[in-house]
């Protein structure tokens, strides 16, 4: 019996052709957005998290705050951190190692072309390995910087790509690159990291970079390695206390920040979640508008097919038969919207994934779960069917004689 109504509903929807498709546009857009969001959501979060280079969970990052607190580390800072700060932090309990680092923007020249690059210092000794470990870096070609190396640099993976490095020519180990008018030799190239900062970075010895930018004492970031995860919070508190004293600021007015990788991730994920909620709200509005569209179309349809309802009643249709016909029809509008939405959402999710991957160099892939799709289909049918209840009741209540008159 229900099968008969499904066939009838399908025929009726086909008869209305374009009008049917316009009606399910709202549901279609809403479902497509939801599918894109869910298929990309987790992948997007992973991809963004990868940008933060959280390799180790036992490293705290200390930065001086500026007037604004925005911008790259070290920019806009009023009172910069110093090497002395780093030395003081090293004396705190449970601190295993302290690595003061500098970051700078350099003028780079290769193949007679100029480009702006982002450089970061590498400390000497075993701290150097630690940087590689905490940032999860590996050298793909050539080798790491040795303590005895002079005027040598290690480059991010994008320098291999002539379209991405800004020089129009691929670089290789052994090439010479001019940084702020000084010549350096490429000794290694890092493996692809999937992060737009790390893939474009120039790593060099700390003393050489400081000399290059004319800074001796200022430090942009202090990385602090703690000897156990459990001590992270305590060390963070101790560093904050120490720096408040050294910088002479009161609690609550800190012009510096000590962040754990988790805290940084949490902030990012919070922003991502906010964006997702916003998009979901838009999708829901679209679905609600779609549902209202279905109510509208079905109500019009009841009026248009008044005579048909009368005929059906004359030849023996019960009120429930008429109700079911319109109800199933509305549900099918929702369902078709859902099916098309899933198809469009999957395609968009795939394209979007490719776009994000090529933009930030990540390797995420859309993830669509079968159960989720079944739920989406059930949901879209329900939205249509619920929207159809009132028009279907209106149809069922038609008096046969009046309906036959048309």
């Amino acid at each position, binding site marked *: *019996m229900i099968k008969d109504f499904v066939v009838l509903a399908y025929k009726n929807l086909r008869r209305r052709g374009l009008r049917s498709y316009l009606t399910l546009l709202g549901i279609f857009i809403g479902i497509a957005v939801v599918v894109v969001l869910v298929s990309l959501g987790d992948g997007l979060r992973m991809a963004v998290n990868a940008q933060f280079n959280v390799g180790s969970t036992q490293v705290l990052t200390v930065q001086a705050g500026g007037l604004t607190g925005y911008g790259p580390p070290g920019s806009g800072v009023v009172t910069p951190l110093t090497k002395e700060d780093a030395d003081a932090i090293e004396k705190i309990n449970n601190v295993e190692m302290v690595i003061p680092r500098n970051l700078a923007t350099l003028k780079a020249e290769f193949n007679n072309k100029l480009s702006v690059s982002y450089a970061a210092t590498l400390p000497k000794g075993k701290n150097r390995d630690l940087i590689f470990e905490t940032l999860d870096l590996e050298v793909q070609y050539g080798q790491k910087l040795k303590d005895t190396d002079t005027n040598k640099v290690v480059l991010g993976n994008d320098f291999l790509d002539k379209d991405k490095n800004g020089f129009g020519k691929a670089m290789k180990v052994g090439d010479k690159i001019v940084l702020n008018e000084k010549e350096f030799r490429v000794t290694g190239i890092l493996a692809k990291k999937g992060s737009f900062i790390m893939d474009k970075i120039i790593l060099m010895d700390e003393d050489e970079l400081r000399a290059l930018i004319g800074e001796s004492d200022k430090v942009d970031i202090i990385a602090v390695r703690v000897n156990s995860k459990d001590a992270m919070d305590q060390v963070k508190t101790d560093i904050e206390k120490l720096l408040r004293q050294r910088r002479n600021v009161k609690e609550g007015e800190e012009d510096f920040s000590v962040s754990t990788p988790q805290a940084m991730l949490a902030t990012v994920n919070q922003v991502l979640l906010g964006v997702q909620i916003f998009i979901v709200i838009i999708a829901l509005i679209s679905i609600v508008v779609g549902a209202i569209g279905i109510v509208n179309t079905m109500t019009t349809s009841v009026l248009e097919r008044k005579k048909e309802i009368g*005929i059906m009643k*004359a030849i023996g249709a019960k*009120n429930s038969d008429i109700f079911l016909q319109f109800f199933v029809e509305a549900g099918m509008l929702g369902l078709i919207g859902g099916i098309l939405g899933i198809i469009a959402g999957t395609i968009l999710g795939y394209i979007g994934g490719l776009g994000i991957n090529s933009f930030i160099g990540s390797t995420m892939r859309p993830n669509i779960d079968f159960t989720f799709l079944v739920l989406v289909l059930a949901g879209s049918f329900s939205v249509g069917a619920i929207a159809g209840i009132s028009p279907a009741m209106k149809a069922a209540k038609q008096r046969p004689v009046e309906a036959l008159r048309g």
Partner: protein
Amino acid sequence: MHKLLIPPIPLIIMNPGLIELKDVKKYYHMGESIVKAVDGMDIKIHEGDFVAIMGPSGSGKSTAMNLVGSLDLATQGDIFLDGTDIEFLDESDLAQLRGKKIGFIFQQFNLIPNLTAKENIMLPMMFQGTHSSEREARAEKLLKMVELGDRMDHYPGQLSGGQQQRVAIARALANDPEVILADEPTGNLDTKTGEMVMAFLEDLNRKGKTVIMVTHDPKLAHEHAKIIYQIKDGKVEKKMKKAGRTWKVFK
């Protein structure tokens, strides 16, 4: 205007007609005034009759047809369909009973436009809960009977008026009803096609079906019917019965 004193049970009456109207009135409100479309009408139709309900437009014959076909309820009086007072049936039970007992043929054919000829004929059976394979077999048989075996999957829009009306006849027969109720069945057809449709109705009557035809055309009524109810001003003006070649008039 409800009858409060009559118990809500189907009334079984003696020597029941297949369809019986007893002092039936149907009034409509038109703004301030009341239109008495049917004003005290008695009609009794027996099994095997060929009845014409005849009258000019505005005589109340359409309203009478709706009441005879139990498409509408009376304002006053009783309508019995196969012994059941239809007033005491709920809408859905009435629809079921109507679908089983009466097959309708309309002046406008009234086929469902987006269903094929075969599907249109299957529809009344679907509402009676007939199994789909049986529906299909019967629809095909009926279409062949009205000589449209080669038009099964055509849509109404692809059929001529005469063909559409034959599909409508087949549809009316779908649930093998006792009564065929035809409202101006030839009204939208040319003479020749009209005669063909009338031939089908006469044939059905010969095979035992009760046929009720509503028409404004005295010639059609006299030629084909055995009993004529002549309607005027919402009342039966006269009832005539065919006796050989003459008509016996009752009031």
